[in-house]
């Protein structure tokens, strides 16, 4: 199922996985958590070392290899700037297509119901 992912998309997936994790992950653990079982270990490793070279992730020794975690300093700084950007009124909001809009109490109830059906 699904389609073949472009290298850029894989990189996003790996980065998202690292951020979603509670602690540092090894390349094998990242591979397990990425959806789709067609990913080779070496592919994940290549992406991780590329991200390390760009300074987006940090690594520490873990056994024979490394465990990776995201670099947080810059991300905190960026978050501040994006907060400014989001407060810019409807014209900016129209350009930034957000994933979800606000919910009413009724919407929340409906969603819980739908999630129950969907699972």
């Amino acid at each position, binding site marked *: 199922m699904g389609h073949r992912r472009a290298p850029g998309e894989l990189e996003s997936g790996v980065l998202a996985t690292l951020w979603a994790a509670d602690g540092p992950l090894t390349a094998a653990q990242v591979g397990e958590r990425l959806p789709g079982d067609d990913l080779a270990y070496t592919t994940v490793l290549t992406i991780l070392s590329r991200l390390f070279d760009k300074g987006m992730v940090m690594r520490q020794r873990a056994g024979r290899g490394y465990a990776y975690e995201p670099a947080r300093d810059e991300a905190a700084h*960026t978050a501040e700037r994006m907060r400014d950007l*989001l407060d810019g009124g409807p014209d900016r909001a129209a350009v930034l297509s957000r994933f979800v809009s606000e919910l009413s109490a009724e919407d929340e109830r409906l969603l819980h119901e739908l999630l129950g059906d969907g699972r």
Partner: protein
Amino acid sequence: MRISVYVPLAVSAVLAVLAPRLAHRLPPRRAAWALACAALVTTAGWLGALALLAFTALARIPEIARQGAWSAAVLSAAEPVRLFVGVAGAAGLLAACTGLAVSCVRQVRAASRIRRECARLPGDGELVVLDDASPEAFALPGGLRAPGRIVVSRSMLSCLDGREREALLAHERAHLRGRHHLFQAVWRLSAAANPMLRPLAGSGCYVLERWADEDAADRVGDRSVVARAVARAALAASGTPRRSLAATGGAVPRRVRALLAPPPRQRRLPLPLLAGGLLLALCCGSLADATMDNEEILDAAMYAACAPPLGAPPPMTIPPGDQAGDQAGDQPVMSRWRRSAVARPKAGSLMCVSNSRTWTVLPRRPSRKALNSVPSTTGSW
């Protein structure tokens, strides 16, 4: 003219009512394009109709009539549009143009700010993660060459599982790839020019979210995963205080329900699309009709303005042999109006000679309606 000039105004009112239904009936991608075309055509029709109405009022001002070399009295007598309607049209046109300009400036400013921020984001990958506790996910469109970035907060990523994260990324990627911000710009501009089109802009937002949802479902290969991702993200976001922002997404439960339902069918003959097309054709046709009527009335007023005063020699006709271009030296003074349309007088065209000027009148004859409406005092010819 009596009715047709108002048709574009009526069409935008009808579209305001129909757009939400159209948005739900059609597959999202097609609906987005249909709504964008509808917005463009209706806005052009709206501005055109207002401009025509405004012209009927402005053309009665004596100074303007003198400049344009038509008779203000004849125009007022022949014009089916009442003066106060024309004045209202002029006011509407002014408001629409002001709204359009203001919205244009605001949007350009917002877009350039966003582009600057996009260029300043760390890294060169597609995804930028914010170390932020409030769940947030959006797409930052790039410029013409730059691909744009997906911005997601840490807490949004951690409330989804692996496949749902993929769905979220695919959704935002679809927004960027489809250049959905341009659709938004079209709808916002048309709503600024014509407030009646605001519901259309609202449905447009929903349709774009649906488009991205369907695209994501296609990529992930499972509709329920996308449905779950949307629902969970919305629930997580609603638990935390959010920044005040006009909601840009559509109603989330409706999106989730649509994703849990079977994919939208592509009908062979999409009736809503056909109906919308007919409506837009009506809009264009009636505007063209109104323009032509207006032209005829104006022609009549021009005839009247250049008609000789009582007692002047009767108008003459160029003999058939004297074709255009044969004797350049003998040409009468060229027409002062419509130089482009009337290069040289043709055989059979009507000449008006007044005291000081010689006028050539268009070879095209005015319609009977226009001629009948010319008051008899100037009808010495």
